[in-house]
């Protein structure tokens, strides 16, 4: 498994040393690190579009921005087949229990990206109807600011999440 080859910089080896290791034909790494590497390669997001941000999320999945470069074009309608929830848009008080139920239906390990300022903190809608931050309902890994964030910003957030998944290295 060529984990260390790509991630040699994490172990303090120079590229030449890594290359030397590769020639030996045997790679050693921890199970934690190998599993984390595999997990981040192909995350399947659940379709959880709510408002304006959902349109930008769809743009990110479509031709120009092409999330499939990270193996993520497969938005799953069933939360049971997804391991990433992108909360894209404002979460109303009426939607909050549904959101929690969908989150509970996802299998471990799972991650949450809060896309846009409404999902992250209520945004400009500080009022009776909107949940003031989706982190009051589900644990959030990455917050993406913007109203709505451009697809590039969403992708940056997702890459940050990949880094987090790869380096956290805890088998859950």
């Amino acid at each position, binding site marked *: 498994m060529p984990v260390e080859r790509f991630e040699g910089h994490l172990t303090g080896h120079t590229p030449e040393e890594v290359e030397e290791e590769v020639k030996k034909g045997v790679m050693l790494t921890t199970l934690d690190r190998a599993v984390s590497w595999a997990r981040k390669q192909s995350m399947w997001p659940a379709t959880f579009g709510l408002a304006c941000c959902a349109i930008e999320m769809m743009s990110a999945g479509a031709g120009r921005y092409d999330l499939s470069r990270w193996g993520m074009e497969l938005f799953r309608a069933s*939360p049971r087949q997804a391991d990433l929830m992108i909360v894209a848009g404002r979460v109303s008080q009426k*939607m909050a229990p549904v959101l929690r139920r969908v989150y509970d239906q996802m299998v471990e390990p799972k991650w949450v990206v809060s896309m846009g300022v409404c999902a992250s903190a209520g945004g400009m809608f500080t009022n009776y109807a909107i949940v003031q931050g989706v982190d009051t309902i589900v644990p959030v890994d990455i917050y993406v600011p913007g109203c709505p964030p451009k697809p590039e910003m969403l992708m940056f957030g997702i890459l940050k999440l990949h880094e987090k998944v790869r380096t956290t290295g805890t088998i859950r």
Partner: protein
Amino acid sequence: MATGQEPRIGHEMGAARDELRGVPHQIRDHVTGEVRRETMIINMGPQHPSTHGVLRLLLELDGETVIRCKPIVGYLHTGIEKNTEYRTWVQGVAYVTRADYLSPFFNELAYCLAVERLLGIEAPPRAQVLRVLLCELNRIASHLVWVATGGMELGAVSLMLYGFRERELILDIFEAVTGLRMNHSYIRPGGVIMDLPPGGTRMIAKFLDTMPARIDDYERLLNKNPIWVERNVGVGKLSAEDALALGVTGPILRSAGVPIDLRKDEPYSGYETYDFDVPVRTEADAYARYVIRIAEMRESLKIVEQALERLTEPGPVMVEDPKVGWPVKLSVGPDGIGNDEGYLRHIMEESMEALIHHFKMVTQGVRVPEGEVYQAVESPRGELGMYVVSANEHRPYRVHIRDPSFANLQAVPTMVEGGLIADAIAVIASLDPVLGGVDR
């Protein structure tokens, strides 16, 4: 009163609730004539891939036939109308633009026209041309999202890619003109916030060259596609009488042979001076709505072309009255952000009055005389109305958004009941509801 702080986890949302009150529990089998009692109630949404956002449908089924359908909305209720009552008139633009997020310019336009009528002013001619130009580009962008998502819901995934490909071209124009891809806050009471950037007209002209061939592509892909025809022809019929009684407007009403288009019937922003047609069909089914939307994209291109010709003459884009117009002069500086350096020097170093005026206008804004107006515009989905009430204050007393999707969705039971459950998807796709507008 329930406050905004604690989410309401305990709220029950199972389908087994008594929300289908008065359901006929006896169904006579049309073959054997015996009375059966069992039907199945299924819950579609609010998290579902083909309900255009957070729409929830309760469907009572006999086999695959829908006996009864109840749409349930409100999962995106945002409190926009309440929020506007706590903000200045100009800040209201930023709220209403987020209601129907696929047609932001139309929300802004309806709101600003209402405020302008309350103030008794009119935007300068160049601003009106810019408004028409951007609204028609927005109409194409909105219909493209309908092509993309509607196609995907019926299994034509390539349409999803094509629709979003062309939409990006329009969003590039929007981003160059307003700074944002969506939720622009570009149209303001009294005009628009800034003129086209250098090269803006060239960008739009290039789009006008590209787009017609792309629309031809969709038609080549769909017009004779057996699956597309099979899934759409004769599906979701809604007669003109039913549509008018249910408050349905826009392409759905025009697909039933009623040629209502507010751009023609109650012209605003100078639409009476543009040359365009209103596509009308009489089949009243999902396929007719597809044909109409495709034709509307072509008509919008015609209007954009005419608007572009009128932009050759320079002129102000905001009313000159300092008591109404936004004081800040905008130009993109070296930092990429838009405050004009000369203007900043003027208020910070040269003129105390200008600084005070700037401060008053930005924090307090314009005071709008007492009164009420209802302003309707033709959005991609139908009649978008804004009922705006002022109590002679610096902020609105009440803003009500009459959203076309809200009224159109009421027709879902009429169109779905008696048909197959698979057709329900095609019906909702043909309605093109945007839940942000429905729930506001």
